[in-house]
C-alpha cells in the first residue's frame, strides 16, 4: 500500500472518530461544539503518557479518552439546562478555554507544542476501534437505550414525563462524545507525531460538525460515510487545481439543498438493510 493511500486512510479514520464524537451527543439533541477541546485533552494526555511514562500505546489512548470523558461528565452537568444555540456557544467557549489553557501550559509544551510522539497509530488499531464503535452503537441504537435517546431528542419534556431520567442520559451521551473525541485525539497524536494547541481550534470543531451533518445525523452511518466522502472529495477534485476548494464549497451547498437531512437518512438505511439483509430487525 502506498504511503499516500495509507496517510489518506488514517486521516479518514481519525476524522470518522471525531465526527462520531459530534454525532453521539447530537443524537440526544445536544449540539456540542467543544469536541476539539476534548480531542486535545485526549491527544495531550495520550502523548504525555507514551512520551514521559513509556506507557503502551493503547493504554495511553484509552487513558486520554477516559480523562476527556471525565471532563465531559463534569461539564455535562451545567450543559443540562442550556438549550440549542446557547449550548453551542457554551461548548465552543469550553473548547476554546481548553485550547488556550494548553497553549499556556508549559509542562506539555506550551506554545512550542509536543513533538517526537511515537508513530503508533496504524490502520489496524484505528479501524478496529472504529469497528468497535459501529458495533456498540448499532446495538445501543437498536435497544431501549436508543429509543430513550431518540425520545430525549424529540421532546425532552415528554421524555421526562414518561419516566426518563434526563440528567443521566444527557450527561452520559455528552460524556460519551467527549470520550470518543478524546480517543480520536490520542490516535491523532500518534499519527501526526507533533501536536500543538492550534490543531484543536474552532476550525477543527466546525470541520467535524460539517462531516457529521453532511453525512446525516439520523443514523450512525451518516457521520462515518459522510466523513469518508468529504475527506476524499478534495482529492477527487485535484484535477481542478486552484478551483478545487471552490468546488468543494459548492458540493457542500448542493448536497445540503438536495438532501437536507444529510446524505444518509433513516429511510435510506432501512431501504438498504431491507434489500441486503432480507428480514428487517423490527418485525
Amino acid at each position, binding site marked *: 500500500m502506498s504511503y499516500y493511500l495509507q496517510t489518506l486512510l488514517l486521516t479518514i479514520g481519525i476524522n470518522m472518530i471525531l465526527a462520531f464524537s459530534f454525532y453521539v451527543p447530537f443524537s440526544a439533541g445536544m449540539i456540542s461544539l467543544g469536541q476539539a477541546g476534548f480531542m486535545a485533552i485526549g491527544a495531550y494526555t495520550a502523548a504525555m503518557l507514551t512520551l514521559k511514562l513509556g506507557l503502551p500505546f493503547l493504554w495511553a489512548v484509552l487513558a486520554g479518552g477516559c480523562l476527556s470523558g471525565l471532563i465531559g461528565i463534569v461539564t455535562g452537568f451545567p450543559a443540562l439546562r442550556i438549550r440549542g444555540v446557547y449550548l453551542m456557544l457554551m461548548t465552543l467557549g469550553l473548547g476554546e478555554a481548553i485550547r488556550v489553557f494548553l497553549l499556556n501550559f508549559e509542562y506539555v509544551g506550551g506554545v512550542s507544542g509536543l513533538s517526537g510522539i511515537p508513530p503508533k497509530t496504524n490502520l489496524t488499531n484505528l479501524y478496529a476501534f472504529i469497528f468497535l464503535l459501529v458495533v456498540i452503537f448499532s446495538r445501543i441504537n437498536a435497544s431501549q437505550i436508543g429509543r430513550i435517546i*431518540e425520545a430525549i431528542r424529540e421532546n425532552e419534556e415528554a421524555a421526562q414525563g414518561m*419516566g426518563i*431520567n434526563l440528567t443521566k442520559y444527557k450527561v452520559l451521551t455528552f460524556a460519551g462524545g467527549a470520550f470518543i473525541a478524546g480517543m480520536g485525539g490520542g490516535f491523532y497524536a500518534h499519527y501526526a507525531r507533533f501536536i500543538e494547541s492550534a490543531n484543536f481550534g474552532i476550525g477543527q470543531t466546525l470541520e467535524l460538525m460539517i462531516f457529521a451533518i453532511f453525512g446525516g445525523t439520523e443514523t450512525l452511518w451518516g457521520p462515518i460515510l459522510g466523513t469518508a466522502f468529504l475527506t476524499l472529495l478534495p482529492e477527487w477534485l485535484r484535477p481542478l487545481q486552484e478551483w478545487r476548494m471552490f468546488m468543494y464549497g459548492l458540493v457542500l451547498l448542493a448536497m445540503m439543498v438536495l438532501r437536507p437531512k444529510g446524505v444518509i437518512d433513516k429511510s435510506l438505511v432501512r431501504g438498504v438493510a431491507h434489500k441486503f439483509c432480507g428480514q428487517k430487525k423490527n418485525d
Partner: protein
Amino acid sequence: MKTLVMTDVTKAFGGVTAVSNVRLEVEEGRIHGLVGPNGAGKTTLFNLITGVLTPNSGSIQFQGRNLDGLKPHKRTALGICRTYQNIKLFKSATVLDNVMVAMPYRMRSAILQLAIKSPFREIREEKEVRERAGALLDFVGLYEKRNHVASALPFGDQRRLEIARALATKPRLLLLDEPCAGMNQAEKEPMVRLIREIRERQATVIVIEHDMGMICQICDVITVLNFGVVIAQGLPDSIQKDPLVIEAYLGDEKLGYDE
C-alpha cells in the same frame, strides 16, 4: 383511600398567580373531571402534580406519600403519568417505539450489560416489552399502525397514541389533558369508551376537558377552577346547576354540550 391529595397549593409566576390555595382530593379508581375556562390553571395543576412545576406553598400527596422535591421522572416511576394538551409525541419515531420507550424496563439501567454482549437475555426482555407494547396499542386500536412514523398519524390517532404511551408507564394516576380537544362528536365516542376502560383497569383518572356534556357523562366527581381558585366541587348534577359555575362559563363558553 385517596390517590391524590393537594392541600392549599399555590403557584405564582412573577406577579401572576396561576393557582391559589387549591384543595383537591381524588379517590382511588374514580374518573375525576377538572374543568374551567381557559387560563383557569388546570394545566398548571397537572404540571404541579407531575413535578414539572414546584408549588410556592402547599403540599401534594400521592397515595399517602409527599411528593415534595421529587423529580418528574421519579413521580412517573411512582405511578403518575400524563398526556399533553398540545400532543408531545416523539414525532420521528414509530408508533411502537413511542410506546416502548415509556415502559419501565429493567434493561434501561443496564448500560454495561450491553457492552458485555449477552444478546440472549436482552432479546427475551425486548420481546416481552414489544409484546406488551403491542397489547397496549391494540387496546387503543393502533396495532395495525405500529410501524408507522408517529408524525404521519391522523390527529385522533395521535391522541390515542399519547394515551397508549402514558399507559405504558403503568400509571396508578393518569392525567389526561384535553384528550378530546379538536374532535367532533363522532370521534369523541371511542375516546369516552377508552377512558372508561382505563378506569376498569384500576387506574385513577383526572380529565381536563371543555366539553361539559362529555365530562358529566363520564366523571364521577368534578372540580371547577376559575382564575386559579376552586369554585365548585361535587357530583356532575350539582355542578351543572351551580350558579358560580354557570357564571364562570357565561363569559367564556356556553355551559352545556359542546359542538
